[in-house]
């Protein structure tokens, strides 16, 4: 079993363990959004989980590294923090910050990271880019808030795990990317009503259960 140092703490983990997971399991917090065990290869899209590994010139995303013997890892260097803060600021610049009215208030990963990295929830100096549509109500049981979504892709993954294929997908591209449920109404065999896997996995409050089904049938 590889033994290695993270922030001067000795850690042991099984061969082949992802560094990020090993750290999280040993109560060393590294900000992360898109990492989920089982997404293989990892999507590495949130750009939050950077660490400095001795011997590497630049910080690397810890979800892409497997543990090795005698690795020396630092999670708190200025370069790492700068990358993380920038990534978080960019995420918040496309986020409708309205925590009071958000279901995820106090259990939101963005709030947690902002507190941890000491970044204000409304960062200055960046233009705000919000999408036109505030709520997508096209799903029979869910509501989707594009301006809360961080596009981590976890919901798509868990849906595929659970149902073989995913009823959610990324649609469009670039700034316009959203999660879409296109065609979901035709999936009569689909057990969305009792599943909720996507809601549970969402690190922010982008997917929430519809208050009532009648609302949809109207």
């Amino acid at each position, binding site marked *: 079993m590889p033994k290695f140092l993270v922030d001067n703490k000795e850690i042991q983990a099984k061969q082949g363990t992802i560094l990020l997971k090993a750290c999280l399991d040993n109560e060393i917090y590294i900000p992360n959004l898109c990492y989920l065990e089982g997404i293989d290869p990892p999507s590495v899209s949130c750009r939050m989980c950077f660490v400095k590994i001795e011997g590497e010139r630049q910080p690397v995303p810890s979800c892409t590294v497997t543990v090795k013997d005698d690795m020396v890892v630092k999670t708190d260097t200025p370069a790492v923090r700068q990358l993380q803060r920038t990534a978080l600021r960019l995420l918040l610049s496309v986020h409708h910050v309205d925590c009071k009215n958000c279901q995820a208030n106090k259990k939101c990963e963005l709030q947690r990271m902002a507190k941890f990295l000491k970044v204000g929830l409304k960062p200055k100096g960046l233009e705000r880019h919000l999408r036109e549509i505030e709520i997508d109500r096209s799903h029979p049981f869910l509501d989707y808030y594009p301006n809360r979504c961080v596009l981590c892709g976890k919901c798509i993954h868990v849906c595929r795990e659970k149902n073989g*294929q*995913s*009823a*959610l*997908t*990324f*649609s*469009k*591209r670039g700034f316009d990317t959203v999660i*879409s*449920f*296109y*065609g*979901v109404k*035709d*999936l009569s065999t689909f057990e969305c009503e009792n599943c909720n896997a996507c809601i549970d996995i969402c690190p922010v409050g982008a997917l929430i259960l519809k208050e009532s089904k009648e609302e949809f049938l109207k």
Partner: protein
Amino acid sequence: MHEELTPEEKEALKHVVSKFDSFEKQRGNLIPILQMVQNKLSYLPPEAIKIVSEYLEIFECEVFGVATFYNQFRFHPPGKHPIKVCLGTACHVRAGDIILENFERKLGIHAGETTADKEFSIEKVACVGCCALAPVAIIDETVHGHMAPSKVEGLLMRIEIEKEMEERAKIKDESGR
């Protein structure tokens, strides 16, 4: 919101579906199949997405996700007068997005959509090869360089007038005979 397919479109769709057999039922064939459908129908109506998803046995939403990623696929029939607004680097610098916005506002549709009367559709394109004329818009086949927001209305008006003149000429022709 979506209008029903016209009889010709239904016929075309049927014809395309009969050709699906030449593709194996593999995920990798999704894009070639979508391309073939769009070639025949000139856009991807929801009906076509449904049929493709059934043929390849993947969810409609995945087909939709793939199709929306690529610029080449469109979801509305092209209008009689397609408007292409260039947003390439040079046009971007010369505020092509404002030209686009003007067309969008004037016609009351977004880029990628078609007006209800099927006369106009707006498309974003990335460079049409005459950057010296930036910002550029192409209406039908005509390139309009050095576009300005104030020119937008004039161009649309001209098409309207041309259409009216044609109609009048037709009436004259018919009554003359």
